[in-house]
């Protein structure tokens, strides 16, 4: 409260100096987000466009740090009864937000404010991840999906055709040829190890990640990643780690430099780095979808990663009008397209995609289509997304065990068994804390 009073006082003082005759009292809408650097600038630009497009509301964006920091910050503010209006929460925080009792669902907000949004226009893997009982609870904002990046130069040196490997078998063979020909020191590396190698690889092969349809239908969920498929995949990575085909490079985006400086010929990482790579990579590169194991596994779809905007409850009714206006603004095709082209995050409405196609955007920038392509198709119970409580902590446990496997301390089965045991404990704790 005090903060707001001070902010208003400050703004008023500023306006008195700068615009002595201007009309006062725009309603402020606070938006907390986790977009740093170039992405943060892009958010500011988007907000500026909204603020200039109308006269009643002023959205104030604030970068509160990393995704976990934004979430804990919002929780602390909520507990002190002074939450921001809109909070950007990452994909793995979805279940926590859904059960928090602290949110105002986006579908309800738009209905109340009588703003028509064609939710069917949004692509299914996105709405599926953030919907409950068929209703969208948060506004999709930055969505991405993991794809394979490859160095055309390393491929050429090894006498390979300019084509990304489609299967994991190819990944292994190509890598061996490339390292033997001196095209690179390692075949490939993976950023966000749990997200790319398990959370996406399971749905991509139509394999269940957890019980209860990956947690969608109940809280008593258990992980299923230590089955035959998980052991085969992680076991293969561990074997490749030994032969130099694969090179584990740490968590989050830490492995990126291995690809950027040419040590590894391939990288599996979010499609959201396309923007950065276009500017900074010094060699020719291309993209391909996530590699697949082939039969007997079906090819399904990848799941989205990234974050959505959640509306917090307990705000003034007048403020909600502005929040709804802003949400409507960012859902419009123009903003969708602009956001996609500027950042590399996916355009997520059919209209925006169609418009981009009409402008030959994907023909001119084929790498921008890769991630969208692997999100098409109707998702199954295994590929609609993941709804796990305290998922951030589970991811952390999984990655710790992956490290034990790649270091040779545990076999793939032992490591995955341990990850499942830890993950199930976390899920049980979450279910107990959220008993209705």
């Amino acid at each position: 409260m005090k903060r707001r009073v001070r902010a208003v006082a400050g703004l008023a003082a500023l306006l008195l100096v700068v615009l002595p005759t201007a009309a006062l009292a725009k309603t402020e809408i606070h938006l907390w987000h986790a977009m740093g650097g170039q992405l943060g600038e892009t958010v500011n630009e988007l907000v500026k466009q909204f603020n200039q497009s109308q006269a009643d509301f002023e959205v104030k964006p604030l970068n509160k740090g990393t995704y976990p920091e934004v979430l804990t910050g919002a929780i602390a503010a909520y507990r002190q009864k002074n939450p921001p209006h809109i909070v950007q929460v990452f994909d793995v925080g979805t279940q926590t937000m859904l059960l928090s009792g602290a949110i105002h669902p986006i579908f309800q907000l738009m209905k109340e404010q009588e703003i028509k949004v064609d939710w069917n226009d949004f692509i299914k893997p996105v709405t599926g991840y953030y919907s409950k009982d068929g209703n969208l609870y948060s506004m999709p904002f930055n969505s991405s999906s993991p794809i394979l990046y490859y160095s055309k130069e390393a491929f050429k040196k090894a006498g390979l055709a300019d084509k990304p490997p489609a299967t994991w078998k190819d990944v292994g063979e190509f890598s061996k040829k490339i390292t033997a020909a001196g095209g690179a020191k390692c075949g490939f590396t993976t950023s966000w190890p749990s997200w790319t190698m398990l959370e996406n690889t399971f749905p991509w092969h139509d394999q269940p990640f957890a019980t209860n349809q990956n947690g969608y239908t109940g809280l008593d969920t258990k992980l299923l990643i230590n089955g035959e498929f998980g052991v085969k995949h992680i076991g293969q990575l561990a074997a490749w780690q030994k032969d130099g085909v694969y090179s584990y490079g740490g968590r989050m985006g830490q492995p990126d430099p291995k690809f950027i400086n040419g040590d590894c010929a391939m990288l599996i990482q979010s499609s959201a780095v396309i923007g950065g790579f276009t500017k900074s990579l010094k060699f020719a590169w291309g993209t391909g979808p996530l590699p697949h194991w082939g039969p007997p596994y079906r090819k399904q779809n990848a799941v989205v990663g990234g974050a959505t905007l959640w509306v917090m409850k307990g705000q003034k009714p007048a403020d909600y009008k502005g929040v709804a206006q802003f949400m409507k603004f960012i859902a419009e095709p123009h903003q969708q397209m602009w956001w996609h082209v500027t950042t590399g995050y996916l355009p997520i409405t059919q209209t925006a995609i169609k418009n981009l196609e009409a402008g030959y955007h994907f023909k001119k920038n084929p790498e921008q289509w890769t991630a969208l392509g692997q999100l098409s198709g109707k998702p199954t119970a295994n590929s609609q997304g993941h709804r796990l409580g305290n998922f951030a902590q589970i991811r952390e446990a999984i990655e710790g065990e992956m490290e034990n496997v790649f270091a040779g301390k545990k076999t793939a089965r032992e490591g995955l068994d341990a990850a499942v045991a830890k993950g199930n404990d976390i899920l049980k704790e979450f279910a107990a804390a959220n008993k209705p």
Partner: protein
Amino acid sequence: MKRSVFRNRALPYLLVLPQIAVTVVFFFWPAFESLRLSLFRTSPFGDKTSFVGLENFRKLLTTPEYYQSIANTFVFASGVTAIGLGAGLFVAALATQKIRGLAAYRTAVLWPYGIAPPIAGIIFLFIFHPSYGVLPYWLGFVTSYEFNWLLKGWVAMALVILATAWTHVGYNIAFFLAGLLAIPTSVLEAASVDGAGAIRRFRSIIFPLLSPITFYLLVVNLIFSFFGSFGVIHAVTQGGPGGATEIMVFKVYKDGFIGLNLGSSAAQSVLLMILVITLTALQFRFVEKRVTYS
């Protein structure tokens, strides 16, 4: 001891009141809050809370990861303290030599302490990171040994110990330097005349006279490694690989702020508090006996 007498009986209480108030608000109150929180199971947003008694503690004390984090903490704290004190004393001794540019040299050795731990962590990343660090790159020319602490737990531990000790060594140097300069040269000269060599002088005179400072630094360094070492670990390893550098204070943060499991996090901070209080009490009980205050 001289006793000061206040005429007004309320005045002394009034004078210590600000200190008491600060201690209560910033130490006792949060400590009490953690103690209370540790007995509850709370949903992240705090809307559902249930009393669970000692369940949070029971769960911690039955998981192997918690014991691993305790073991990590002891390895980490002993490493940081040993390297921090050893290097501190060594550099401080060098800084008492008569060399040209002594003032500039003395200032320079204190610098690392002025660097915030997360920044120190980033600097170490740029030197040691397997993907983009300078050192592994050079090592690649002379040996096939892969300096990969992203997978090798003990290398990661050595790295965070080194980085943390480095950030704290300036503080130790400052105290040792002050201690060394306070030793009267007449005593040392007398010892020399009696035929004591450098080692003998150090063992029989310098070290005993430094013991109050060494003891103080021992306590402070241990407490610092238990609590204040968060920044480096957060910046460099985030507790990995596979929990090899997950020390207790980092686990408190991780379970509380990333895991949003406040009950367990509070229980861990209570246990950590008890552990540090016990350790400090033990040090005062046993180690301090061997300290010579002049």
